[in-house]
């Protein structure tokens, strides 16, 4: 028999919108909920609403493949993501919820010399920053994850891998539930079916949001709209250096455990883990075209499964059970945008692209800080929108490009 | 690639093993290849010089005095001329281009594979996304598309059907493997009388 999920008896209140709030968070995904939670918890600001156009989590929160890790490359990013990972390590206790957070290890396979060098470079950078990381040779990989085909005879033989043992997965839906419950309990109003359609402005200052459920006044507004950030920015009269693409994922039917870590492969564009329930959860590179349709193209699935079967022949007879896509907001340097916007009292938190699930805790933590103090949290100073003017990009393509 | 055949020995063995009467793969004739680039002003001059009314339109091939001429793009045509004929052919075309075009010897940058037989549509449609139905892909038609994951130029020479595939030499191994494997599949279908396209013969339905 299967391990049954334990969801609590009570999750959240369903209040009516108030006339105004100290802070209105636009977007009830993980980052929006996390922001609201930390506003209340860390800063005592409880007169907060999260306005969500659909149901909580209906964006990328429920669509991501749940890879959690902090092995990024840049000096600017590593502390941010690793602080996030440390928050994860305490989150189940803090939120009193079984998130199925499981630090089973994340392997990043390499298939070319250049890729191997890049990954080694990340390993070195991680270790020097105090982030756990190891370099594994093919034999070590085989020992750690026996189903990987490390034969030198395949098209792109495995040349080695990095391993972050503290990396892992969690149950995405549970995280939505847990954050919503915690925020709601702290007094945050979660307003679903409440689409922001415009902003109320006094000069260059935002004073409220116009929604499908009426006007809601706001002392400050945080835009946390992930795949729809460019549209939200458009409503507020500015634009973002963001392109929106579909990113697909798939699950297999439920099978006995074959894989107890996360394995990613940048060159072959596929990564896979096995969720606690038993389904294989697989992802690939994003689609090439712009879209808001939450679906992608079939050849992406075909290619990723070809790659998967080269690497994990045991998966041949698993079934593709369900596929879906989320819309990811991709920045030019694969790093997020966090902080002030061109509009006063309006703050933005977006651009996490294909990799923001892992940042759910830290994104809310630092963004709540920015909303309260009007300056970025020290972990987030490098991620302002101005960096594109100054040319001080935080290029994470190597560490975040294909993988998650 | 041994000096004689354009196919490496292992590929020769692969295709002769796979081929059967209804789908046969062989190395095609050797040719010299010319890429003729011509802006609109030069196209007519070139055509006239070759005794043609015009150069072939998109997706078409025409026989000319310089051999088969294939449309490649709005300002490019590929001529497949006799081996060693490139130089002379260039001399024929070049004067008419003036500054509005160029002719480039691209001999050897593609190899011709020939695929013949009534089952070849099955073989091709197992790796090529084009609509090859006789009602839309008639003899004399050509198209650039993909086999597996690589670019090819496909030409239907006659209604046998006889196909010519123009494949860059470095990709020949890969393309031949796809075709040979497709032929094996077609043979199994033939032997098991499985209907797979409306035009494959004979037909019997499997439950």
């Amino acid at each position, binding site marked *: 028999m299967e391990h049954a999920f334990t969801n609590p008896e009570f999750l959240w209140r369903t209040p009516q919108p108030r006339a105004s709030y100290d802070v209105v968070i636009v977007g009830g995904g993980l980052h929006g909920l996390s922001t609201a939670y930390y506003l209340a918890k860390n800063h005592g600001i409880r007169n907060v609403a999260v306005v969500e156009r659909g149901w909580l989590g209906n964006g990328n929160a429920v669509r991501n493949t749940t890879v959690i890790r902090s092995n990024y490359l840049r000096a600017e990013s590593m502390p941010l993501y690793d602080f996030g990972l440390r928050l994860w390590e305490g989150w189940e206790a803090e939120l009193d919820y079984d998130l199925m957070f499981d630090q089973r290890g994340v392997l990043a396979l390499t298939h070319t010399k250049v890729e191997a060098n890049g990954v080694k470079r990340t390993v070195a950078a991680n270790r020097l920053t105090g982030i756990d990381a190891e370099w594994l040779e093919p034999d070590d990989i085989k020992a750690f994850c026996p189903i990987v085909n490390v034969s030198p005879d395949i098209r792109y033989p495995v040349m080695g891998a990095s391993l972050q043992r503290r990396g892992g997965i969690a149950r995405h839906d549970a995280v939505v539930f847990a954050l919503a419950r915690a925020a709601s309990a702290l007094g945050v109003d979660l307003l679903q079916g409440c689409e922001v359609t415009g902003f109320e402005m006094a000069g260059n200052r935002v004073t409220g949001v116009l929604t499908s459920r009426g006007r809601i006044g706001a002392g400050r507004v945080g835009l946390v709209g992930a795949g*729809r950030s*460019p*549209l939200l920015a458009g409503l507020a009269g500015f*634009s*973002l*250096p*963001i*392109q*929106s693409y579909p990113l697909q994922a798939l699950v297999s039917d439920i099978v006995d455990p074959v894989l107890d870590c996360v394995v990613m492969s940048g060159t072959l564009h596929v990564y896979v883990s096995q969720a606690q329930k038993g389904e294989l959860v697989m992802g690939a590179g994003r689609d*090439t*075209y*712009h*879209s*808001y*349709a939450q*679906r992608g*193209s*079939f*050849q992406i699935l075909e290619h990723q499964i070809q790659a998967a079967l080269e690497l994990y022949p045991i998966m041949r007879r698993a079934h593709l059970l369900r596929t879906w896509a989320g819309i990811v907001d991709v920045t*030019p340097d694969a790093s997020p945008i966090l902080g002030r916007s061109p509009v006063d009292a309006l703050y933005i938190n977006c651009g996490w692209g294909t990799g923001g699930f892992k940042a759910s805790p830290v994104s809310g933590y630092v963004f709540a800080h920015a909303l309260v103090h009007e300056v970025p949290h020290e972990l987030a100073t490098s991620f302002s929108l101005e960096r*594109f*003017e100054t040319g001080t990009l935080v290029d994470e393509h190597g560490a975040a490009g294909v993988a998650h | 690639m041994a000096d004689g055949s354009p196919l490496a020995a292992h590929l020769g063995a692969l295709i002769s093993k796979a081929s059967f009467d209804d789908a046969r793969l062989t190395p095609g004739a050797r040719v010299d290849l010319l890429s003729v680039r011509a802006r609109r002003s030069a196209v007519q001059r070139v055509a006239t010089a070759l005794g043609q009314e015009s150069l072939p*339109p*998109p*997706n078409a091939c025409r026989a000319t005095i310089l051999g088969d001429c294939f449309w*490649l*793009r*709005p300002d490019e045509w590929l001529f497949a001329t006799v081996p060693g004929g490139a130089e002379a052919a260039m001399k024929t075309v070049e004067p008419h281009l003036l500054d509005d075009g160029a002719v480039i010897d691209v001999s050897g940058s593609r190899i011709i594979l020939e695929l013949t037989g009534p089952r070849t549509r099955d073989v091709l449609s197992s790796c090529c*996304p*084009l609509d090859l139905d006789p009602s839309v892909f008639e003899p004399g038609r050509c*198209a*650039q*598309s*993909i086999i597996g994951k690589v*670019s090819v130029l496909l030409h239907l020479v006659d209604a046998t059907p006889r196909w010519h595939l123009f494949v860059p030499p470095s990709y020949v191994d890969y393309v031949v493997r796809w075709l040979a494997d497709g032929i094996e599949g077609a043979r199994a279908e033939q032997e098991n009388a499985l209907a797979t396209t409306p035009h494959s013969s004979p037909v019997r339905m499997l439950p």
Partner: protein
Amino acid sequence: MLLITCPWCGAREETEFRHGGEGVRVPPDGDDPGWTRLLYYRENPAGPYAERWVHVHGCRQWFHVVRDTTTHQILSTRRLDGQEGAA
């Protein structure tokens, strides 16, 4: 998976094409912020979107496509010179 009508070659599978987005434009002279926009900012509408594709595995021509990003419906394809395709 899209089926895209190349103005030259006709309707072909998406796998024969490469997406070019809005494309780059040769810069007009301008100040620094203008340059930043040119480098990093592109249109990204929900709805009809004017984009460019190139038929990499076919005629290698770039062309214009208007596609609705909320439905993936292709509203038109045109040659770069603005003419409708013959195909």
